[in-house]
């Protein structure tokens, strides 16, 4: 059940990335064809990106697909690998939990900032991103529990397309 929810969430977040690309693409087209722009394309792109990546970070934390240095881990046996993973996820939680809390404090105290064209309340977008930060902390806890019970997803071998 949880895996289905996470897969669905990941698909929605990934769709937001496509929306950012689409907004950029169509805005360039509209700018040159009609000398105008899509209302709020800039603000919407920024907010959609923040939501997509924040939820992406949550899912990467649960699936163990963050970029890590594996030198020590690769030279360890199974039990020690699990201990290292539990430690690494606990440290991750140590950053994510206060981060989620502080993001929520900021979003809760946000004024009535709006987007420049459609006057949409920015706090709603930030709130969805903040929920992603909370999900990241909760999923880190879930991963620690599953690692302890030896059921956590293993991110080793996940594609890395950065540098």
């Amino acid at each position: 059940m949880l895996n289905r929810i996470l897969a669905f969430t990941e698909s929605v977040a990934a769709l937001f990335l496509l929306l950012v690309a689409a907004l950029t693409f169509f805005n360039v087209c509209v700018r040159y064809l009609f000398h105008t722009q899509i209302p709020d394309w800039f603000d919407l792109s920024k907010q959609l990106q923040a939501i997509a990546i924040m939820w992406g970070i949550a899912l990467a934390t649960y699936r163990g697909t963050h970029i890590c240095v594996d030198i020590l881990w690769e030279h360890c046996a199974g039990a020690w690998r699990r201990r290292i993973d539990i430690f690494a996820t606990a440290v991750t939680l140590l950053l994510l939990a206060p981060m989620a809390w502080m993001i929520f404090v900021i979003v809760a105290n946000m004024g009535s900032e709006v987007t420049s064209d459609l006057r949409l309340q920015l706090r709603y977008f930030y709130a969805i991103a903040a929920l992603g930060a909370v999900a990241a902390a909760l999923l880190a806890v879930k991963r620690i529990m599953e690692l302890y019970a030896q059921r956590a997803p293993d991110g080793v071998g996940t594609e890395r397309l950065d540098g």
Partner: protein
Amino acid sequence: MDRDLVALLGFVLMFLLMALRVPIGVAMGLSGILGFAALSGMGPALRLLGQVPLSVLSDYNLSIIPMFILMGAFSAGAGMSRELFAAGTAWLGHRRGGLALATITACGGFAAINGSSVATAATMSQVALPEMRKAGYDPGLSAGLIAAGGTLGIMIPPSVIFVLYGIMTETDIKQLFFAGVVPGIIAMLFYSTVILFFAWRRPATMPSGRIHSWRERFATLKNLWATLLLFLVVLGGMYLGVFTATEAAGVGAMGALVIGLVRGQLHVNQIKETLVGSLRVSAAILTIVLGAYLFGYFLTITQFTQNSIEFLVHLPVGAYGVLALIMVGYLILGAVMDELAMILLTVPIVFPAMMQLGFDPVWFGVIIVMAVTFGMICPPVGMNVFVINSIATDIPLTRIYRGTFPFIAVDLVRLFLLCAFPMLSLWLPRTIGG
């Protein structure tokens, strides 16, 4: 507490956490926040922890990274990498070492529509490596060749590393992209020279393949329109000022999707998988960027950054002596550290020093990419080598590393040439880059 000591402890903690498999971005972020708290108090540190993620992740300039990742992923899904290799094979495969030359050509072509070294290496491992092995090529040399060819992904535009460098140093990304073209072509020529040398000296490692008819050869060319179109739209659009580099990435991503759909090579499930894969990679990269920002704030209040710049600028070895020391430092760091983290941590220090010493920011961007290139293929942590090994599990890591050595040797020559003749990098951006 003494600021220098806190800075030192911050670095020690960060490297320790990294070694214990804490995600790199988290290790940087947590060390940064704890260091910041030690000097400024917990309240300001926590406020920083709330503000930085929201501002970094909603920075529109950074959308260029996920967009170029999407573009590369859609291009691979649309079969462009296979078409490039097929064309190279048809035209060069009958020569001794021809498949290897075709692989380098395909790597260069795919690099023009994809901004990642690892993605280029991973894609070509699936496309070219099985063909080379089937034809009797030496597996280690073939894998080493793809590891080196993969690095073209970050030198030939578009390039994620150029983008990050451009954002961090406020250097024009368009100029950086154009600056990578000639060094990328030089790399292809040097790698081809290595291949021809092996084909001549050790012909058994690179047998020749069958001859393709002229009709077959020209038939493969007609499939390359998509790659060429995408490259020309992205680079041409930037050159003509039709759109910014960030917009070019979005246009490229949508362009690759549309091409895949029009040719019937991208289907709903494949699109979904590509999007999810790109999200995972983007989230992993931007976590490191986020961590680097947090660690950067910490370094700023310790004045470590300013002190390091002063130290570098006043070293009694001259400007090129400092450059040489920095490159040696990068070679060592690149061998043990993730390349993204290395760039994000060091550029804020070395870039101002290089500028004070009179070097060109665009040229130094190319040199930084060269430094990353070595990190991607040098032991013990060569990410391209790891990726190829994860795909071709029967080729031992040591054998792949051995296969990369000839290419590392010519890369050192290329680095020397780029340092000695900055115009190799700067001629194109100064001529057409605007």
